[in-house]
Each structure stands twice: as C-alpha cells, then as structure tokens.
C-alpha cells in the first residue's frame, strides 16, 4: 500500500486533478469541464456508497439509484413547497433515504444471492412508479427547481466553483468515513458475513442487523448524492432512479474495482469520461460500451484498480 507504486501515483494524480480542475477550467476557458466533473463527483459518491454494500458486504443491489431519486425528490419537493434552507433539505434527504433503505433492506436482506439482486431491482421499479405517479410534483415530466439549496453566506450553491468544491469535500469525507468504517469492528463483521455468513452467526454476531445497518448507511450516502444531483441539474425526475442508472452504478464499481475505497471513484471517472469521449466519436456509442463491459467482466476481474495494483515497476 505504501510507497510510490504506479497505483498510488495514479490515484494521487487523480486526486490532484480533481482538486485543481476548476482552476484549469477557469484558465483554459472551458467551464463545461466543471459541470461534467461535478456530475462525475456526485455519481462517484453514489458508486462509493454502493461499493460499501456490494464490494465489502457482498450485497449486490440492483436498485441503488432509487436513493439518488429519493434524496433528489426530498430536496426538490421541499424547494417546491418553499423550504429552501439547505440545513433543512439535506438532513431531510439523508433521513428519508435512510428510512426507505431501512424498510427495503429489512425485506430484501431476508433473501440472498440472485434473489437479492432481483428483489432490489423490483423495489426500485416500484418506487420509480411512485415517482411517476407524483402528479403534484410533475409526475413523469419531473420537477424543475427554481432555487438551489440555501446556506449561510458566503456559501452559495449557485456558484459553480463553490458547488464543485462542496461536492468534492463531501466525496472525500464520505470516502474517509467508509475507510474508517471498513477497518472498524463493524466493517470486519460485514466482510466476514460476506465470506461466510453462517460462521459469523455461529460465533455470535447477529449478522442480519449488521448488514441492515450497513445497507442503511449506504442508502443515506446515496441519498446525499441525490440531494447534490438535484442541486446540480436543478431538476428532479423519475429518470434519476431508472433501473439503468442502478446498472450504471454497478458498472462504475466493478469497472473501477470492487472492495477498494478509491475503486468506485476511478470507475466513475473512467465510465463518464469514456461516455463523453465515445459519444463525441459516434452517435451509437453504446454499441462500443456494451461489449467493452463484457470484456471487462471476462478479462479484468479486479477492475482498473485491480489492474493498477498488478503493475510493478
């Protein structure tokens, strides 16, 4: 882990790039880069949270994007109803996504393996239809936010550079939190339960409760990403929690490297930059991306982070 391996060098370079990006965008006169990378950072936060349950806990949730939707809708609905303070909106987003994660997790965690994949997908679909049915808040067409969340001055979410750094600091905070978490006793129980749940139960851990708490934490972090995304796009719609978005999150985690704290960040940057680059080449870019995912599955199991870790100087 320590020392200047190629992996550490690339990770350090990525972090430095993320930190100085707005400066570069300002000098080079490319403000769209800030918009693109804010989006990348927010989706990376969602991917990092999915990695907590998927990479460390072995819970492959195919419905993780609903917490983006829930967090986004809480902010959007509160803004619509005239509650603009971020001190109210963001904690509310965390709380509501945590409550939903608790209810969904309590049911889904009764199942395992492929049942878990499919039932999380089905619950995501259920909530997607709830959002489509929210006539008062735009239904299928979505809900435009006319004002971003308001905090005390000088913090101004409408300033693109400030919002970028707020998102980045929150992402780093979340990653540090997950790093602490997985190296704690709690994290050991979660990882033990992934390897052999029966054995963990036999030595006395109520693994269901541990896994449920882990599921709720991941849901809350993803809800925070949703609150950020709503502020970023100034728009919430059911498309935020479409099942393909959940698929994208899984792609980011596996592409970057499961079960590593920085893996999902690398994956999010790689996937979204790749999307941007491919869609510049051809309108039919998914015809290239699809088989690429298959190739990653077949030949690069540890994802990009896994490949980097193998490279020796």
């Amino acid at each position: 882990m320590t020392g200047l391996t190629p992996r550490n060098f690339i990770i350090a370079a990525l972090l430095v790039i993320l930190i100085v990006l707005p400066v570069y965008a300002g000098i080079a006169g490319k403000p769209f880069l800030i918009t693109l990378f804010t989006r990348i950072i927010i989706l990376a936060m969602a991917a990092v949270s999915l990695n907590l349950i998927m990479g460390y806990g072995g819970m492959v949730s195919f419905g993780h994007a609903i917490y983006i939707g829930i967090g986004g809708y809480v902010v959007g609905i509160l803004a619509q109803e005239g509650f603009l303070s971020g001190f109210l909106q963001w904690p509310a987003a965390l709380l509501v996504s945590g409550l939903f994660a608790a209810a969904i997790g309590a049911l889904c965690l009764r199942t395992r393996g492929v049942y878990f994949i499919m039932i999380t997908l089905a619950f995501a679909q259920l909530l997607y239809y709830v959002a489509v049915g929210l006539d008062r808040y735009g239904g299928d067409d979505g809900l435009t936010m006319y004002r971003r969340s308001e905090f005390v001055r000088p913090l101004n979410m409408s300033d693109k550079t400030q919002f970028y750094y707020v998102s980045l600091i929150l992402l780093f905070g979340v990653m540090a939190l997950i790093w602490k978490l997985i190296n704690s006793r709690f994290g050991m129980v979660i990882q033990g339960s992934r390897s052999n749940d029966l054995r963990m139960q036999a030595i006395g851990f109520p693994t269901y409760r541990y896994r449920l708490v882990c599921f709720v934490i991941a849901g809350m972090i993803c809800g925070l990403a949703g609150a950020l995304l709503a502020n970023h796009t100034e728009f919430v719609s059911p498309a935020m929690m479409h099942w393909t978005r959940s698929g994208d999150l899984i792609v980011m985690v596996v592409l970057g490297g499961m079960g590593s704290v920085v893996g999902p960040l690398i994956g999010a940057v790689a996937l979204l930059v790749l999307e941007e680059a491919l869609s510049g080449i051809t309108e039919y870019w998914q015809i290239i991306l699809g088989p690429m995912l298959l190739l990653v599955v077949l030949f690069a199991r540890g994802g990009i982070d896994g490949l980097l870790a193998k490279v020796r100087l």
Partner: protein
Amino acid sequence: MLLFLEQCLNGLQLGLMLFLLAAGLTLIFGIMDLVNLAHGSFYMIGAYFAATFTALTGDFILGAALAIAATVLVGMALEVIAIRRLYGRDHLDHVLGTFGLILFFNELVRLVWGPAGMNVPLPAWLNTHFTILPGVEYPTYRIAIILVTLLVALFMYVLVMRTRIGMLIRAGASNREMVGALGVNINLLYTLVFGLGTGLAGLAGLMQAPILTVQIGMGENILILAFVVIIIGGIGSIRGAFIAAILVGLVDTIGRGFLPDILSLLLPSRSASAISPALSSMLIYLMMAIVLVLRPQGLFPVSNK
C-alpha cells in the same frame, strides 16, 4: 360482470405472455446458473424480426415462423460467442456482462431499424372479434395468443418431463458434472437450452408486436415483470413460473381495471384518481414483497440447488 370477464381474459393473456419470458429465464437460470438480463433483448429482437419478415413475405404466420428461427439463431450465436464464457462466474459478472449486452442490442437495433417505432399489421382473419358468450365479444387475435401460449406451455411440459432431451435438461439442472461425466455433450445441451429460451422470448415479443408498437427498450419493463414472476414462483421452477405468471397477470390487469373504482368508494374521488394509477402499478411488487416475507425462496422453491 362482462367487463370483469374481459379483464380476466386480458390478465390471463398478460400472464401467459410473462410465462413465455419467465420460462426461458428460469430454465437458463436453473440449468446454466446464469442470470440473463439480456433476455428481454430477445423479446425485442423477435418483435423487430417479425415486423421485417411479415413486411417482406406479406404473410403473418410465415413471417412469425421466420422471426422465431432468426431469433433462435441470434440467441445460439450469442451463447457460443459470449454467454458460454460467463458460466461458472459470479452472479455479479452475469449482471454486468448481460447489462452490457442490453446496451449493445438496443444500439444495434437503433442502427439497423432506426429510432422510430414499427407496427405489425394483423391479417384480416385474425383482426376480427369472437363471441365468447352471447353479447361478449373478444378480439380473435388475443384468443389466438392465449391458445398458442397454452400449447407452448404444454409442449414445454412434454419436452421437459417426457423426452430424452428433457431428461438431460433436468439432470443437468441437478448435477451438471455428473451429466458431463456420463458422456453428454454439455456444451451442445447448453446452447440448445439457451436457444430454446431465446425462442420463447422471441415468440412472446412477436405475438405482442401487433398489439403494441415495436420499439427500442420494449423488452426491459416486461423483463422486470418476468423477474418478479420467477421470484414469486421460485427461481428454477417452471411450474412455479407458470402459476406465478398467471397470478401476476391477473393481479396487474384486474388491479388496473378495478382499483380506481374500489378506491373511489373509500376515498374522496380526487385523491382516489390521483393515487390509483401509481398504486395499481405497484400492486404486483407489493404482492412480491408479501410472498418474500412469507416464503423467501418463492412459492415453489427448487430444493436441490
């Protein structure tokens, strides 16, 4: 009452359609242990092939037969090229790899057939109404769908329970190494099973084609419904898939048909009309949640996995 009967028939038709998809999914999962998200793509491809071949030949039945053959060929080719390499991998690998295939097939269809939807016209002899009871008319084509799917279900039963191939399929589901050790060509068997599954999905797609618009992504929503079916029925069980498919079809259709009326009795009409569309879309997912709470392995769990 007459409306109720009609809705029951619609529900039965949806259920049988879901069975065609769910049977393929559950067969492929039961035997190859493969989670195939791309199954819905074959539903879409079957419908597109049907649109092309009926336009080319000018005959619906001939076009449908060609469409099934073409879908099975695409399916078996995909199995040989890509899917085969996923067997024995983690389920997460299946999810990711076949998710990539969905993206691929959606774009491929957009490239070949264009982004606009297509329609498949019905021949005149199917485009009539049939009097099932005095005063109750029902479209002949929908009755034809019900009959064809029932025949396919019967065919599946005979194939799996009464033939040598079926015996191998069942044996492969219980213990694949042993079947291989006894000298059966497992690779060929797997390719055939995958072809059978894609053929069923293609059949479902092409039969829906004259009712719905043929469009990109049409296989995805129904795929999720098929997942719900096999979760309720118990993954790997064809009998469970059959019963669960009909249950889901009936609950969904009758819920959509009558929930608004039932709710308007209980609630003020404005809030009833606001929540009933969302609630009726949610109904089958609620049913699935209840089944999973009571029986986490589904209604007909397969014990020997």
